[in-house]
């Protein structure tokens, strides 16, 4: 093999690989057609795409689970490095499913806020919301599936471009400023990522993740490219201390939008970071880098939680909690890449457990946080405000919503039997087994702080008050039920922790397993 020259892989299309295209193209077509149809058409289109997208995700995940093998699709029949491959491993399948579930719930929920009555004229906010929803979906699915770093760049931009208008949907100066700030910071992130991509192409002649992993070497080109790309991606993930845009943006968007942004959009760049380090350049993931990423995560957990404790408004509190929960994800880097001598003490696949735990945290946070943001939206609709101090008697006024909020909160705190508990327990176990106890301490303290901020909401909401709360609007039961269903999803994750872990093991980066041997 020529130095730095990637040859093609003997890849062929999987029998149901075309579904990978559909996962991206269905919502993408939805964007184009929504703009064309306008008005109620956009909403109908979203409602029609939703079950199809969920079905695609289910079939893909089911197939990967049963066969235990990843799916590949070469678009147009062109092999990488010239062409682009879509690949779905267990991680992609889990993410596809999570995305489908959360977006499905948001669709059902948003019918209440952005539904148009029959015969009504096209209106601005609803049309834009449905278009952006489809945009987020196609962007996310592209991030989960694309195997080429430049396609991933376009996919990330797609994601940003659909996320930003969601932030400023209400058109107030505050949200416009939040959106502008988000856009500018995300753009700087993108351009750093693109710089890294250029360097990698210049060094290795391919941007395909798998090909790259074969030819990449620990040398300055790869180092600088990796650090630029990582920094750019972290800016888009809003990892501490790069979180400046997140609180106003996530708190300013309408509830359905916040749910998408917090639950899914920030995860796109995170997963890309993971793929970059664990799949494309595992040989670069050394002690220093992994500990640095973990330390930033730890700082995010503590910092975000403390600030969440101090917010007076519910949506800001949830937004800061997102910063904290994103922090947990980054424990994946030190814990899933521990060298063999660190894991041998207890003789088990601790890297793999950390990997599963990290991904479980991602999924649990996605479902729980989406449910919480939507619950917060219902609360704000019912009360006309979201000031935590004035929540007295809320538990009585909106019992289902508060139950959903509480279940989501349990997952954030890591209380059993939630998905968050299983995730955090797995990370804890891995941390102790690998002798990296400092992460365990942070995880515990983060859980305590999460309990603190959840308690701040619940103490007044559940306090017995004699005055019955004055509700501004009656929130329909069906929307409350959607939110509750999503929160229950977060719980169910905890009740069957084995299943996703089997799925996650399909196509798990070799680096995670190889290091333990």
């Amino acid at each position: 093999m020529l130095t730095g020259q990637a040859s093609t892989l003997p890849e062929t299309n999987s029998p149901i690989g075309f579904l990978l295209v559909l996962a991206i193209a269905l919502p993408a077509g939805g964007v184009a057609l929504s703009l064309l149809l306008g008005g109620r058409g956009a909403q109908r289109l979203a409602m029609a795409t939703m079950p199809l997208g969920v079905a695609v995700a289910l079939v893909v995940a089911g197939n990967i689970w049963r066969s235990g093998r990843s799916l590949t699709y070469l678009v147009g029949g062109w092999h990488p490095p010239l062409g682009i491959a879509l690949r779905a491993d267990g991680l992609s399948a889990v993410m596809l499913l999570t995305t489908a579930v959360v977006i499905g719930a948001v669709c059902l929920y948003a019918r209440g806020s952005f539904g148009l009555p029959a015969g009504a004229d096209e209106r601005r906010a609803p049309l834009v919301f449905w278009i952006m929803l489809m945009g987020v979906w196609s962007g996310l699915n592209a991030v989960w599936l694309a195997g080429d770093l430049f396609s991933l760049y376009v996919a990330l931009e797609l994601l940003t471009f659909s996320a930003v208008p969601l932030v400023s949907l209400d058109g107030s100066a505050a949200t416009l400023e939040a959106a502008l700030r988000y856009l500018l910071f995300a753009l700087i992130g993108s351009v750093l990522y693109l710089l890294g991509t250029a360097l990698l192409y210049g060094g290795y002649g391919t941007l395909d993740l798998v090909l790259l992993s074969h030819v990449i070497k620990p040398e300055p080109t790869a180092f600088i490219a990796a650090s630029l790309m990582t920094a750019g991606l972290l800016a888009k993930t809003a990892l501490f201390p790069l979180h400046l845009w997140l609180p106003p943006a996530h708190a300013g968007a309408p509830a359905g939008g916040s749910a998408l942004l917090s639950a899914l959009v920030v995860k796109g760049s995170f997963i890309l970071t993971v793929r970059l380090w664990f799949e494309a350049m595992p040989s670069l993931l050394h002690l220093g880098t992994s500990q640095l990423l973990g330390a930033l995560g730890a700082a995010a957990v503590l910092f975000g939680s403390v600030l969440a404790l101090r917010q007076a408004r519910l949506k800001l509190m949830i937004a800061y909690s997102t910063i904290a929960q994103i922090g947990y994800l980054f424990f994946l880097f030190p814990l899933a890449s521990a060298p063999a001598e660190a894991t041998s003490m207890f003789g088990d696949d601790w890297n793999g457990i950390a990997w599963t735990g990290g991904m479980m945290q991602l999924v649990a946070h996605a479902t729980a946080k989406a449910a919480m943001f939507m619950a917060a939206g219902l609360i704000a609709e019912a009360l006309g405000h979201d000031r935590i101090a004035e929540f007295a008697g809320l538990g009585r006024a909106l019992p289902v919503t508060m139950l959903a909020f509480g279940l989501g909160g349990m997952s954030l705190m890591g209380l059993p039997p939630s998905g968050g508990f299983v995730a955090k327990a797995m990370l804890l176990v891995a941390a102790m087994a690998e002798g990296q106890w400092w992460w365990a301490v942070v995880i515990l303290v983060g859980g305590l702080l999460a309990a603190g901020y959840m308690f701040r909401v619940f103490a007044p909401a559940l306090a017995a008050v004699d005055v019955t709360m004055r509700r501004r609007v009656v929130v329909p039961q069906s929307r409350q039920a959607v939110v509750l269903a999503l929160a229950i999803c977060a719980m169910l994750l905890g009740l069957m922790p084995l299943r996703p872990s089997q799925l996650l093991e399909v196509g798990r980066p070799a680096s995670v397993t190889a290091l333990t041997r």
Partner: protein
Amino acid sequence: MLLACLSGRWRASMSRGLVVAPLPALGAALFASGASLKLPPLLLGFALLLDTPAALLLGAASLLWVGAGWYADAWLRDRPDPGRFTVWWLLTLTGSIGVFMAADLAGFYLMFTLVSLAAYGLVIDGGTLEVRRIGLIYVAFAILGEAFLLLAFVMLVVAAPGVHTMIREAVAALPTSPLRNATLVLLVLGFGVKLGLVPLQSWMPLTYRAAPIPAAVVLSGAGVKAGVVGLLHFLPFHAAWPGWGETLTTIGLISAFYGVVAGIAQSNPKAVLGYSSISQMGVITAVLGIGLGSGNEGVALLVACYAVNHTLVKGGLFVAVGVAQADAGRRMWSLLLPATVLALGLGGLPLTGGWLAKLAVKPVLGSGVVGLLGSLSSAGTTLLMIHFLVRLAAVPAACPARSMLAVLRLTWLGLALASVVVPWIVVVTLLPGALTNAVSLGSLAEAGWPVLVGGLLAAALSPWRHRMVGWDRADAIVLRTTDTAARLGCEIGKSTEKLDLLLRRWPVAAILLLNLAALLAALMLVTG
């Protein structure tokens, strides 16, 4: 059984179900006692297992829950918002029952969390600011304990093969674990919070004082036993751990005496009972410590017998406080007479349940220094209980509905009766040997002297009683500490906010972004 409980929980959306809900658990305790019962793993990967000591605890606890449920039902009738209390009650009940039966780590942790945290809802039912503050202190302690336990469990899992682990397998692997010492420390700390061992005891009297009486009944009687069963199941009694055992015994004895000394300085009878619980749990811990030191697995059963008595007596005495509050003092004898028997029984008055309980653990304590200290603690308990009786008699009475009074009385007498009868049944069936040894004049005298000493002490101290009240400022210190902690937390929060404002300024964040890239590159260049 747990499922039966759970379904009972749902059926019992009305408070009337409170009485019925614990019955399946009582049944489980009766029919499964004496033999181990292992259910096939349920869909959650949870497994249930009921060994004899746990069955004893379960039986006593569910009996108490039945009685307290009856009480709570009557108590709730003239409350504005019974539904909320009921939900918390049933959640706590589920945890309290489940914790005795859970056989796997995750299940145990879930149940332990449930009994600890759901009890918060019971504690704060009073709703005043002071009560809520105490509720916060309770939760803070509970969560601290949870954190210790979670870490300990994680270490257990790490050391045991497989991720989903039965408690037994995990504990069996503990002696060879490289994290053994840390695990043991964390286990003792975690359960110690629940048991109110010194120095983690402060929440207990505060909480009992603040909680409504039905809640105090179940918390002091049944809730605390989650800690007992935790120590029983998680300490590795199958091997001898001399150093560990002695440490545990010392902690236990310190708690036993601290409870007495601090308790007699209290004027509120509920607080006195709280301190008494600290003392009693100290005795239990001391016994367990001896068992741990000598690798004696039989100690579990004895401790369970002791704990059964405490469950019923302590619950009963709290009901007595309720009766005293409710009854305008007309028929005091019907209250005070059984109360005296119960209270002194806790100190080991011969022929009471407490005497049997002391008998059960006596051989373990032995006749050395520890044995003497044990007897002294009995004397102390007697002293404390006499103090309690005095304070009980002085409780000012309110005027509740007649129907409630009747229920209260019945509950009270029932529990009083049970607390005498049940220990007899238990000891006769499980420890016949201990009994035959005991019914000799010598041992009667031996058991009797601490009671006598305690009585004399009480009489001797009575002139100074008024001065002693309020001598112990532990709870005030705790309150002050929490205030300081809150202020400190506030400061931390404020400075974090300032940091956030700084970090969220555009140039700062952008510079950090670039330097993060530079740092990553530098790290790789240096190490790679």
